[in-house]
């Protein structure tokens, strides 16, 4: 079937098998490979993107379900100028990534978290990220990155 998704502001249209997962639409049709597949039971969150502004696991959503809707991936976070998005900057500043494989999904989940809860406590950050698995960092610096990003946004 024909699916049209606005990805990072650009319309991407293609005829794809009905069973195409959104993550494969993004990776193979839209050519955006930052979003990764890390599991097959919707456990790991490496595939997290924003669908109409809210975080979803793109491996558990059909491309058809995203038809005529808008998706933001990690590539779409920076404004195109090459500058990192504020959350990405925080991840770098706090060494919140090592191998980088979970990172796009982790960043998108963090962006969504801060949109819904601009001043989370450490516990709230940890709970909000429990659907995003990381094997390298032990989460310590990821949590610091999210708290730093939140704190940077707060008006003094």
């Amino acid at each position, binding site marked *: 079937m024909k699916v049209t998704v606005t990805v990072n502001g650009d319309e991407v249209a293609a005829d794809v098998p009905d069973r195409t997962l959104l993550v494969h639409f993004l990776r193979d049709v839209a050519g955006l490979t930052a979003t990764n597949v890390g599991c097959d039971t919707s456990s790991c969150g490496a595939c997290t993107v924003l669908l109409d502004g809210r975080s979803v696991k793109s491996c558990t959503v059909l491309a058809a*379900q995203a038809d005529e809707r808008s998706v933001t991936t990690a590539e779409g976070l920076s404004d195109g100028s090459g500058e990192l998005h504020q959350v990405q900057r925080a991840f770098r500043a706090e060494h919140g990534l090592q191998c980088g494989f979970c990172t796009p999904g982790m960043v998108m989940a963090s962006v969504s978290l801060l949109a819904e809860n601009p001043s989370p406590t450490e516990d709230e950050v940890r709970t909000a990220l429990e659907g995003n698995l990381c094997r390298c960092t032990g989460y310590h610096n990821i949590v610091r990155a999210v708290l730093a990003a939140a704190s940077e946004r707060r008006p003094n």
Partner: protein
Amino acid sequence: MIPAPFTYRRAASVDHAIELAAGAGEDAKFLAGGHSLMPLMKLRLAVPDTLVDIGRIGELSHISEHDGQVAIGAMTTHDEIARSGVLAASVPLLAQVAGRIGDPQVRHCGTIGGSLAHADPAADLPAVMLALDATLVARGPAGTREIGAADFFLGLFETVLAPAELLTEIRIPKPASAAWSFQKFSKRGIDWAIVGVAVQGGNVGLVNMGSTPLRASVTEQALASGASPEAAAAHAAEGTSPADDLNAPRAYREHLARVLVRRALDEAGTRA
């Protein structure tokens, strides 16, 4: 990790959805949020040949209150339920439970109707529906009917819903008592409950103590006869048939049920 091939159909309305499902035959399934169905399909444990996507049917997504009853559209997401001011005020048990299902990504997609129709006894919402004496409204080729939560769940992943019959609304009588609590025991925050307990007033729902959600009826009777929470909780596992599995032997589940029911009753008592 790829579903077997299927035909995708998008429904524009409830009647259209029923028509599409009825036309496709036995192997059609409704696609709500997809977060119970898609994982099964990706492992090819479910292989429907037709998916009827009901995600764009606006009339299925709403939360309203009137005449002492809260009505929730079946396609309302867990996140919407968790954020609802109406539910926080009127049915806080449901609002809190919905806010802790899975993780944020799951809550943005998963729906109350999808979860209930999936009927996993390890899921949180079915037991909550029992504790709330909810009524489930379904529409199918034979028309519309109302089903009490107590009659809805038949067995493991099995409900009374007929083929092509769609859950449209969940109706919850506004609870008379302010006493409520939800106790969920799992290894990790994101795991399915090893055992869970939903208390609303004198109703005690049990998660994962059998092939369907259950009421701890002996406990409820004890409470009604004036027993203390501790004494009533001692009966929590009676009439249940919990599984023996990787996470818990049967006796451990029974023990947890007693502990969690007591804790739930104690916490509910502080809100009464």
